[in-house]
């Protein structure tokens, strides 16, 4: 009786998942990035395996793995300077709401070779596809835009520049500052079953919850996706100082002033004798 039920349950289960695709096993060298006084940046290795079973269909091409690490989201403003009365001031601005403060893409080869830009846009894989909204498939950047600087030089400064100018500038500045990183060799697939990728965090990494997403592709199709969270946080003294400055600004301010007065007094005393 029980045996029959088991069989029925198995049949139902198999019916619900007709063609069993690959699954991903993901783990990481660390689940937290701890910031202490000697923090100058850090890295985390993401690794795992592609799990197949008897019912997994054979693939014509090898697996590709893309790992994205997305920092906490926040609002950002991109400003453009313009010459007004002989001096350069911030004249135009565009807000980018709810964008990742940090973003890293690691893959075993260039992501444009792995999947079609439309797919990359849909899953927000790749710096160039991060801000494009999914309802209007934006392939800008994919077909090799080379004229960023040129458009700016030709731009009529009396008119407000087009939106994508700000978007490109935003992405470029984020890349230059190291907050957005793209490494088409940062990930590796070993023996078509194991993978690893190493994500680095700069010294001025934003704090908060990061999301690590692992995508498995083959022949341009997305086969599996797995997601793990990590936390970047201050620890020990740094955390204490930051928390105090936020929750008790009066005590924090008073301590800073006392420290300053003490340092000044001490300096006077030490050097008066000598």
């Amino acid at each position: 009786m029980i045996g029959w039920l088991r069989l029925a349950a198995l049949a139902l289960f198999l019916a619900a998942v007709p063609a069993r695709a690959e699954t991903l096993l993901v783990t990481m060298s660390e689940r937290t990035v701890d910031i202490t006084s000697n923090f100058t940046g850090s890295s985390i290795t993401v690794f795992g395996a592609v799990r197949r079973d008897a019912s997994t269909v054979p693939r014509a091409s090898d697996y590709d793995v893309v790992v994205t690490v997305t920092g906490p989201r926040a609002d950002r403003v991109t400003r453009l300077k313009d010459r007004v009365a002989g001096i350069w001031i911030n004249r135009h601005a565009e807000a980018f709401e709810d964008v990742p403060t940090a973003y890293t893409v690691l893959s075993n080869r260039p992501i444009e070779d792995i999947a079609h830009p439309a797919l990359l846009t849909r899953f927000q894989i790749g710096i160039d596809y991060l801000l494009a909204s999914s309802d209007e498939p934006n392939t800008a950047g994919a077909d090799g835009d080379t004229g960023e600087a040129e458009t700016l030089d030709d731009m009529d400064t009396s008119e407000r520049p087009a939106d994508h100018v700000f978007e490109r500038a935003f992405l470029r500045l984020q890349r230059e500052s190291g907050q957005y990183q793209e490494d088409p060799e940062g990930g590796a697939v070993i023996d078509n079953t194991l993978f690893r990728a190493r994500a680095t965090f700069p010294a001025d990494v934003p704090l908060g919850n990061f999301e690590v997403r692992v995508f498995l592709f083959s022949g341009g199709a997305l086969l599996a996706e797995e997601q793990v969270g990590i936390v970047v946080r201050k620890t020990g003294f740094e955390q204490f100082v930051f928390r105090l400055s936020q929750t008790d600004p009066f005590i924090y301010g008073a301590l800073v002033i006392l420290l300053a007065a003490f340092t000044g007094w001490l300096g006077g005393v030490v050097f008066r004798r000598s």
Partner: protein
Amino acid sequence: MQIYLPIAELAVNVFLILGMGGAVGFVSGLFGVGGGFLLTPLLIFSGIPPSVAVATVTSQVVASSTSGVLSYWRKGGVDFKLAGVLLCGGIIGSSLGVWLFSILRSLGQLDLIISVSYMVLLGAIGSMMLIESARAVWRGARGGSVSLRQPGRHGWIHGLPFRVGFKKSRLYISVIPVVLLGLAIGFIGAILGIGGGFIMVPALIYLLRVPGNVVIGTSLLQILVTMAVATMLHAFTTGSVDVILGLILMVGGVLGAQFGASAGQKLKGEQLRLLLALLILAVGVRFLVDLAIEPTDLFSVAGLGG
């Protein structure tokens, strides 16, 4: 050696910051000014966010002026009553300054205001001091005596109402210009992260005709309290006072100031003022150049709050 700053949220080289604090401390000991007008731009040029630089330098000024006030106090060179009246204006001024600071930060024009204000302020003060000290040096070279205090001459300031006696400074003047002077310096100080000693000292000498032996001590006391208040206000409104950055700057500043002070004793007063004038002008010109030359990158990214 890199150290992580908990409020600025980035890592800096300790020795670089210590060196900056020391160099500015040397200048401040040499000329008897706070040096904030040099330290804040240096920090901004080295990548510290302007809001953190301005707020943190206010705490460093507290440290450097404390040693100064204590040593002048022992020599009887502090007029507490005059400093108190200046402070009444100073505290109102810093409150207004910190309030405007947070508004400008949200408008995205904080960097511009800081740069333009520095340029105008340093340019004006530097030129005035340069002319005055060059004349004094020239007169000194001809063998004439130089007197800053001219008791017989009374300007329009001395005709205002609400006159109060300041015994230590041997003055009987209206409180209006004193309060206004304190207010203006507190306001400028909070926005620019400077103590304002380089404005206060000439103003006390030339406008109020305070005798030379109490000028620096009184100015330092007023700066000490105004900057302590500004530190507190920054801690409350912007939360950008970085205690680690502040401590490194304080240590460097206090050390540098000792060497500066002994070097200063080897130079004549008017020569010191001439050098200081040139230094102030140089920083002002640096800001002018930055504003006038096309930046290498016209774009910038910031958080919505600054």
